[in-house]
């Protein structure tokens, strides 16, 4: 009877001149890919330097948690405040690279008060001994004025690989802490000598994963 199986197998192989890999364990392949993406995160396979060059607007790369990479386009610029928008309708308002307001995420910053201002500070000369205060307000679910203690550490310069260039940037770490809910995270900003934030990894809410952001085409001043 083994012959029947062998003949079945060869009949089947003859039936398809090319062995299509997407028909071999398609469910397992999909599951493996989903698990890999969930554990390691998505790779950036779609946004290339050429694509960025072809778009005539200031742009940046964004990633929420381990999700896929997306491209944000600069919508408006008002002094040090910039508003960025993604194709699926997520808006991020940034003050000199720090996210201070959002729309379109599962949980959004509706308002934020800071005891110091990113826009007025020279980030490279921040006082590392002062404990600053931020007050975050969120929607869905609504929460007003979550007080967060903030300290900064300037870590020094290193070469950072961006999508379309390499830059020598200074890493500034911003530690956020609220002891009542046990939220303690460190945000990272990579800035140039003009205090321009080229890349950052920011936690903006206890309900959201880390947001990674990288400028691909700098806004003109």
């Amino acid at each position: 009877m083994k012959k029947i199986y062998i003949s079945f197998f060869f009949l089947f192989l003859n039936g398809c001149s090319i062995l299509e890999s997407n028909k071999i364990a398609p469910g397992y392949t999909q599951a493996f890919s989903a698990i890999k993406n969930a554990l390691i995160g998505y790779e950036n396979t779609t946004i290339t330097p050429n694509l960025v060059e072809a778009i005539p607007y200031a742009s940046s790369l964004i990633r929420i948690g381990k999700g896929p990479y997306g491209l944000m386009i600069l919508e408006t610029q008002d002094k040090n405040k910039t508003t960025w928008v993604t194709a699926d309708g997520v808006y991020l308002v940034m003050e000199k690279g720090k996210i201070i307001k959002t729309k379109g995420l599962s949980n959004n910053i509706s308002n934020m008060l800071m005891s110091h201002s990113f826009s007025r500070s020279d980030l490279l000369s921040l006082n590392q001994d002062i404990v600053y205060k931020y007050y975050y307000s969120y929607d869905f679910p609504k929460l007003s004025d979550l007080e967060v203690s903030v300290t900064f550490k300037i870590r020094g310069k290193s070469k950072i690989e961006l999508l379309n260039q390499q830059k020598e940037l200074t890493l500034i770490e911003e530690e956020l802490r609220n002891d009542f809910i046990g939220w303690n995270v460190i945000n990272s900003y990579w800035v140039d000598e003009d205090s321009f934030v080229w890349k950052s990894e920011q936690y903006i809410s206890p309900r959201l994963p880390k947001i990674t952001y990288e400028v691909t085409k700098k806004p003109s001043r």
Partner: protein
Amino acid sequence: MFKRRFLSFKGFLCWTFLVLFSQQALPNIEEYFPYKIVPAASNFGNTGIYQVPNARFMKEATLRFNFSSSYPFEYTSLTASPFNWFEATYRYVEIKNRNYGPDSYSGNQSLKDKGFDLKLRLLNESTYLPAAAVGIRDIAGTALFSSEYLVFTKRYGNFDITAGLGWGGLGAAGGIKNPLEALDDSFKTRTISVGEGGNFSPKVWFSGKTSLLGGIEYDLHKYGLKFKLEYDTTDPDSTRFPVEVDSRLNVGVNYYFSRSLNIGAAFERGNQFRISFVINGNFLEDTIPKPRPKNVIALSQKQKQEAFENKGIFYRSLNKSLRDESIYIQGANYKEDEVDVSIGTTRFQSQTRAAGRTARIVSALSTDEVKKINIHSMNGDLEISKISINRKEFDAANNSEGSFQEVLAKSSITSQSSEPLYSNADFMPLVDFPEFNWSMSPSLKHQIGGPEGFYLGQLLWKTDMSLKLSRNLIIHSSFGINLYDTFDEFNNPSASSIPHVRSDIQDYLSEGKNNLARLQAQYFASPFKDWFFRADLGLLEEMFAGYGGEVLYRPFNREFAYGLTVHRVRQRGFEQRFSFRDYETTTGHLSFYYDFPYGINSQFLVGKYLAGDKGVTLDLSRRFKSGFTLGVFATKTNLSAEEFGEGSFDKGFYVSVPTKLFYSDFTTGAISFGLHPLTKDGGALLYQHNSLFGILGDTNRSSIIRDWDYLLD
């Protein structure tokens, strides 16, 4: 003096208020704790403390796997919540210090007891009143863990306090008079009948010794910890399998990695440690973002006119744009004021979503004279619906100048299954018959809970092939090649007194490791509107071959359907190739299907089963909008409980989780699993590949309207 006392009382009130309601003053802050603490599983799997249940429930559409191990009791369970107010649990309890049976029968395997529990919410918690729930453990089991309870749970800040009454196992400690005695004297005593199980014994429910039970849980959100303390009233030192008890208090803690995953450690009976592991998933909604409709650049007026005059351009452009969405044209007609497109897809579960994406592309390519876009949805070669969309309303909604409700108000949803568009369309893609398709993947077969071993299984390489000879005529085959198995350990032949239509499962598994599971020709048709027909011939399933068919009447605008299946079948040889056994029979059923509100679907079958027994099957399920489905079924035939054997009648449950809930793109597949606690000959149905209700069951008008908000998604 009076003043001091008064102040003291006031101070006490203030302190009490502050302690009890301090967290409630910050109603939303709990949502922002990095750790998400949800109600915990009891040892038995349903929501509770350890032995003691509470009145908390999982959110609807949740599945929870619970493993909880101690000596001698180890619990493994699956709990589902088809509603916010209802939990059902299926579980195995391993009793490590007792053998399954004599050495000659089951070796040194420890005793396993399976059970089924139900829990129902009676009252929602309010400001002053606690939540209340009633439940039954081991509802048709061996009476080893049979219990009933009525519990109340109230939250005070981070404390969750439970108190209630227990009967049966939970009432073993006694201590109070059964309050139900006031209703009837039969509640005074509990007649214990320990047997093979499978029988419902409502007469013993809530009768006999009664105990007050209770416990306290405390959530330390900041660190993701839940502390639990209970007073155990199960009296485990005086049961059939007594264990040493040094304390009636069980205490422990659970650590929540996330809302979906927690581990626990406990100290119980004053002398044993317990560890537990819980993983759960809520499938109410699809939380993984999916690709939005692809960007379609609308043609200019001039280009649209050219495409109208030379329709080949239109059809080719439509075909290409739809393929980018994994939607395949089966036929299309472009008239002056309307466009008809017949589509098939294996990407979208919802025909409304596929219709919306198709309409978007048609609108971008067609002239402004087109007022109506008719989308004909296909499943296989059967046309299942026709959605006629008002183009103007659709375009407005698509440009955020209208809503999907407005589109619905000016659209019509019909079915013309007997006159599919592809039979007389202006454009039809060329299909070369015979069309060959195949897929292969590893697969598992298993038998759980047998005396030879708790889990015996096989890993095989499964290959499915299909050869479509013409529209509606197809040959399917499925064969498996063994990679590894433990079926040689089988040692429990069937002792059934009726024809062995299913109970020879061990022979089929051990002799058919390399098998031809199916080789079958099928023909489908819809000769009249809403009438569907299927004919079968060949090796229909692993145990039976034969011929037969199904007729289904599905009135498109109604919530019911009915049908008839009849097959003449002969039993296949154990090795599952081309040999046959002597047994043959005719089996068939009249079927009635009804869709109740809230996604509750019912199936009622009446007819003759494979072993020749006659009876009825009732299947109830709830399908959530996400596609997640939970169902139960039971069959009662004219066989006596003795003829049927252990279990008394056939019953089981099933779960289906759409795979799209795990992926970042749409798919139509589902991870389905079901459980027949026992493989018996009574009430056995023929497994029918491509049952008509499986193809057409979720395609009527109400299904399209349910998903109407997907039209623009």
